[in-house]
Structures are given as C-alpha cells and as structure tokens.
C-alpha cells in the first residue's frame, strides 16, 4: 500500500479523515502538552474551585471549568493526554504484538506447545486484574509504565485466542499448502501468509481495546490502584470527578468525552485501515476469498 494512495483513500472517507485529524491533535498534545500546559494544569487555586464550564471571564484555561483544587480542566485534559495515550497505546500495542505472536504460534503448532499456551491463557484469564495491578504496583511502584504492563497482561488472552482461532482456519487453506510445498518454513508462513490475514481482525479488536484499556485504567484509579496523582490521565480525572458529579458534572464529563472521542476515532480509523490494508476490499470489492480473509 503506497502512502499517497493511503492518504487519498483517507481523504475520500470523510469520517475517517476527521478521526485522523482528531487523533493527530491528541498525539501532538501528548507530545507537547505537558511542556506547554504543565504549569497551568498544576496551578492550584483554592479560590477558583469548581468553576463551571463555558465561562470565559476567568480566561481561556477555565473554559471547561476548574476542578476541586481550582485547576483548569482544559489544561489538565491536554496534559493528561500524554499519559492516557501513552498507557493506552503502549498496552494495546504490547498485548497486540505479544498476544498476536503467541496466538499465531499456538495456532501453527500441532504439538503440546499449543495446548500449553491455551491452558496458560486460562490461567491469565482467571488471574484477577486487580490483584495483578496491586502486585505490580506494590513490587514495582506506581509508574505509568507499570500500569502498561498490568493492562497489557490482562488483555493478552483475547489476542492469543483470536489469533489462534483465525490461524486454525487459515492454515488449512490451499495457499498455505502451496507455500509449504515450496519449502516455506513455519516462520515464513506466519509472516507472509498468516499475519496479513490475521492482522485486520486483531486491529479491529485493538481499536476496541483502545477504549477498553483507557477505561480499565480509569477503573483502576477508581479502586485506587491506577495512576496516582500528581500524574494525571483522563481516566484518573473521571475517577476523581465522579465524587463531584452532583455538584460539578464537568469534572468527569470532559475527560470522559475525550476518552469516548478517542475511542470512536480509533475505531473509525481501524475500519478505514482494514479497507486500506486489504487490496481486495480497497476497491470496494468483496469477492469470495477476499471476504473470507
């Protein structure tokens, strides 16, 4: 897929285009936000607590209101983008890559290895994520990177199982046999034939997971095992803001909205990518085997 092509395709899909722009803004914020707005976001002003949204009298930074310490909600959202996106992206990518790889191996192996992997998945699924979070946080400390580890591990099973299920089907197809006849190794088959066919499915799951992980991080914060202040993430903001829902809805609403928009954008983009990555679907074609993929 050529880049210009991809861009042209992106331009054509208006929704995906908007989603891409939104994500670019978020990513830019994640990169420069803390440097630009770090000061504003941490400036505590007990005399300007819980200012409501949409009031420009106090300056632009209070447009979305202020929190219980009088900090600008807007600035905090912008600063929180880094940790939020970093954690979500990091854990989704980690679980996607590791889980996908393990799942493919499990699907391709016909011996005991596949079985061992599947049973290990049972174990991971039964291991409560909260306990895992606590252990990691207790042993390794409350670093955002550790949150990534926790979330990535808890999300592994879906990828392993999905990848494995797909591989079980794909490996029976004749083109895999054709490659084996030519002397392709298992590795070659996995990379050239399996991954391209499994990836779109995994990517769709990853896009959905993007939201899932942001929420899981938020739920961890709610239970006191997530990102700890003074670090800030959108999830943490929602968790902190819930105590004020009655008096200051905006505290949890705006970061919640940011999570939701990011999730929607990620999903739109993933659907678009599925089209763009699939040559047969790209032309708007859904022929027999293309769709089968």
């Amino acid at each position, binding site marked *: 897929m050529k880049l210009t092509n991809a861009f042209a395709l992106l331009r054509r899909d208006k929704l995906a285009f908007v989603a891409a722009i939104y994500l670019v803004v978020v990513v830019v914020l994640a990169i420069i936000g803390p440097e630009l707005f770090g000061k504003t976001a941490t400036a505590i002003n007990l005399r300007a607590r819980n200012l409501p949204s949409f009031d420009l009298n106090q300056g632009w930074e209070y447009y979305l209101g202020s929190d219980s310490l009088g900090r600008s909600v807007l600035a905090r959202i912008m600063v929180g983008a880094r940790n939020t996106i970093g954690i979500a992206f990091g854990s989704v990518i980690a679980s996607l890559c590791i889980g996908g790889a393990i799942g493919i191996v499990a699907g391709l192996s016909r011996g005991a290895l596949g079985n061992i992997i599947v049973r290990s998945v049972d174990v991971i699924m039964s291991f*409560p994520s909260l*306990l895992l979070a606590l252990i990691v946080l207790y042993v390794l400390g409350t670093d955002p990177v550790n949150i990534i580890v926790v979330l990535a591990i808890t999300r592994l099973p879906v990828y392993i199982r999905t990848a494995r299920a797909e591989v079980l089907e794909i490996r029976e197809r004749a083109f895999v046999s054709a490659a084996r006849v030519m002397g392709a190794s298992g590795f070659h088959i996995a990379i050239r034939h399996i991954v391209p066919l499994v990836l779109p*499915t995994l990517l769709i799951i990853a896009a959905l997971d993007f939201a899932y992980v942001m929420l899981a991080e938020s739920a961890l914060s709610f239970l006191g095992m997530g990102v700890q202040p003074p670090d800030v993430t959108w999830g943490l903001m929602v968790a902190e803001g819930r105590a004020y829902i009655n008096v200051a809805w905006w505290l949890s609403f705006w970061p919640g909205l940011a999570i939701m928009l990011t999730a929607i954008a990620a999903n739109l983009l993933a659907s678009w990518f599925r089209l763009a990555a699939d040559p047969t679907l790209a032309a708007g074609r859904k022929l027999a085997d293309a769709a089968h993929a």
Partner: protein
Amino acid sequence: MSGYILRRGGQSLVALMALLVLVFFLSRLTGNPTDLYMPMDASLDQREAFATKHGFNDPLYVQFGTYLVNIAKFDFGDSIFQGRPAMQAALEAFPVTLRLALITMVLALGLSVLIGSLAAYRPGGLFDRVASLLTISSASTPDFWLAIVGILIFSVTLGWLPTSGTGTFWHWLLPIGVLLVRPLGLLTQVVRMSMISALAAPYVKTARAKGAPKRRVVFVHALRNSMLSVITVAGDQAAALINGAVVVETVFGWPGIGNLMIAAIKQRDFAVLQACILVTAVAIFLMNILIDFAYSRLDPRIRG
C-alpha cells in the same frame, strides 16, 4: 469424546494448580495483613505475636506446604478479618456475581447479534452508522461514571428505580444496564465485523440462490460462521464479569465476589483471596471448556 473431556479436565486441573501457586506466591509479595488488621496503636510485640500466630513469619515454602496440606483436606483456611472459613464467604458471594454475569452475557450476546447482524447487512448504511456510533460510545463510557449518573437520574431525579441494593426486579435494572454497555458495545462491533466477512462469502450466494429469505441468510448461514470470533470475545467479557463486576458491585452494593475479592486484596486476607480465585477460576475454566465445545459444535473443521 469422554477421552477428550478427561484429557481436557486433566490439563485444566494442572493449569488450576499453576494458578493457585502463582496467586499464593505473588500475593505474598504485597506484604501481610498484620498492620492492616491490628489497630494502629498496637505495640510492636502485639504485631509480632499476631504475625507469628497466623504463620506470616514462617518461610514461604512452609506456608505453602501448610496451604497444600489443608487444601487436600478441603480446608481453604479462615478469613482473618471475618473470622470464618474463607470458602464459605466466597461461595456465599459467588452466586450473586454469577447471576449478574449470566444475565448480562445473555442479554449482551442476544442484543449484539441482533444489532451487529443488522448493521452488517448494509455496511455503511444509516442503521450501521448509528448503531456503530452508539455501541462504540457505549463501549467507551466508564461504568462507574455511568452507574452514578444512572442513580442520580433514575433514582434521585426521576424516582423510577431504587438507587441500589438487591431485592426486587427493579433493583436489577440499573446494575444490569450499566454492566451491559461495555460487552454490548464490544460484541456488537465484533459481530458486525465478522458478519460483514461472512456475508461476503460464496456460500451466502448459494443460500441466496436457494431463495432463502434475508433473515435466514443472515441468522442461519452467515451468523454461525461468524460466531467463532464472537464467542472468543464473549468469553473474555464473561471472564471479566465472573472475575467480579467490581465497579458495579461496589456502587450498587451488591454482595458479589468482585467486592469480596477486592476487599481481600486490599486487606491481604489471603485465605479469602485464594478461595475467591479458586471459585472464579473453576468457573472460568469450565466456561472455557464450554467455549471450546461450542467452537467444535459451531465449526466442524475444528472437530477432531
């Protein structure tokens, strides 16, 4: 078949043991409950005595040995905080969670299959767009937020539903509603995705050429083929629910296993924690066996 079940059961048992070992040792990395149990002004000696009495000062392998021996006698230890057998507490809480999880999953599966299939029938159509947007949004709403807002709207402002607690039919609505959103959103997306693939498959043409009505094409021919990935994701969701719908249980005051487990985790009440995990793990393992069974029922190519 019975050979398969035996082998599968054996493997699961080994995995279960591995899980218990893992939980036992990892959870003890987080300290012990002495300080949490003893009042703050207890003296060092009192703390020491408490720890020794409950075996926290023994080397880990000794503690583990005792644990194993007791398990063999079906003794899962006593909760330090509750002063009663841990398994009793776990078994008391589990049915509540199981009921919540079952109802939620049944609803989520049913609704997502319906919505997802309809959306997939005309990808990019109005229904698809609206449904996708709604389900993705719902899948990305924090549940605790939704729960509290739900209470404020439906119970306090409108007065239609009880705020929380258990008892009548009405008590179920809010918790189930809140629990439902995420699995529903996720599953609908997955159903939609795999239905789009399945509906483009050649055998769908065959079905249409037979004169099968739209409904039959979608729900009989395409659906079954697309259920594999749906079941995988549904299994994951169900496991998460069984492992404790912690947030919903917390907010609505449901005495489920999630609540119990988080309390045990926070209190380092290891016996309860291990009992809870044992109970949920058995459930999850059984569910996974069921899922595998469903796989092979759904797709004959996986059989054998």
